[in-house]
């Protein structure tokens, strides 16, 4: 069956982006699963937010300062819960801490925040 030559790019692109669009409509388009779960656990049960809101999505670019400002968790408590040294710079991003602290993963801060805010 012969078709017009433009069928190839038009069908190919429509199908590719059509599936993406369909996933967005149906809610399957999730680009940051961990952050979304962290956000929900942080925002639903804030401990004592400094500014009245605990909405924060924790990514590799997030600093410890941003987290404690958003959640109200004391720095020392957060560091202890996440297994970080007590003298850790609060302005450091989680990604940079991953390089500085052996064995550290940004997900441990997410988990620590989730645990602390749920208490």
């Amino acid at each position: 069956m012969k078709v017009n030559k433009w069928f190839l790019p038009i069908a190919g692109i429509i199908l590719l982006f059509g599936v993406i669009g369909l996933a967005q409509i149906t809610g399957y388009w999730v680009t940051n699963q961990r952050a979304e779960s962290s956000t929900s656990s942080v925002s639903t049960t804030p401990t004592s937010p400094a500014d009245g809101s605990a909405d924060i999505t924790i990514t590799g670019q997030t600093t410890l300062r941003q987290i404690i400002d958003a959640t109200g968790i004391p720095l020392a408590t957060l560091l202890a819960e996440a297994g970080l040294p007590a003298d850790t710079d609060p302005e450091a991003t989680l990604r940079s801490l991953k390089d500085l602290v052996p064995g550290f993963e940004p997900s441990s801060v997410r988990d620590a925040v989730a645990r602390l805010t749920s208490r």
Partner: protein
Amino acid sequence: MKPEHEDTPPSRPGQPLPPIGRRPSAFQRRRMAVRSVHRWRWLVRIAAVALIVTVAVRHSRDHGGAPSVDAVCPFGAVESAWTWLTTGTALPKIQPSNVVVAIGLLISILLAGNVFCGWVCPFGTVQDVLTKVRTWLRLPTVRLSARVDRLARHLRFVVLALVLVQSAMTARLWFADFDPFVTMFGLHWIFEPEPTKMWLGWGLLAIVLIASVLIERAWCRYLCPLGGILSILGRASLFRIRRREDSCTGCNLCVTPCPMGIDVAKPVPAVSSDCIGCLECLAQCPTGGALEVSARLPFTRVNHASPSREVSR
């Protein structure tokens, strides 16, 4: 009877379009077709580059969790497949969006072939820009012999195997540290330059870009692991560019513009599965019907009497 294209001179640079009401010559029609393909391909590819750059900039500037380039790459789902099958969890940085893009790509290829590489992939666009630059600068191109070219194309599968094994063994996106696409479009070299950590990725990117100046789409032809997978899947696509030997005059005009270096004039009946659906060959073909987009059941037998085993299925 003379072929249609023999009625017109072989080349007339700068020839204006015909006046309204006058039927364009075969050469003019071909030229208009080529321009049309070029215009639309560049338009779509520039849009794709803009889209991926926007994603990267938003991710780098927005601490609120905008998706990263890793999260929209279809290859991520492939890298994570083994870990997901054996442990039930994906590799770090792999998101459901990777699976969605991979499924979309799979459906797209099974119906319309591998148009992703020719019309969407931003790194393919970068290589095409480098080819343009080489043309403007009138730099020489490197042509590998048919045998070396055929063997070198298998390097894609070597890279693919290496990436899959390393990803499974290290349980992380091992290739992300070297992937030229991520190195370039992740934009870490702008927002978070860390030369001590990134020198290897930058070095590989530089080598690939230099190679792409010398050989058109060198990364796609010889090293891209995703391209390797897509070339396999492309064999099963329903609609493909096919050549009708009874209509072809053997002028070889379709061979030169192919960015993947496929000998389009030889394969019977289907163009190589390395085809990226750019339509350059179809636009150049002066003989109506010699090259056409048509459907045939996938994986059916073909005539292996083709003179080019390299490009035939």
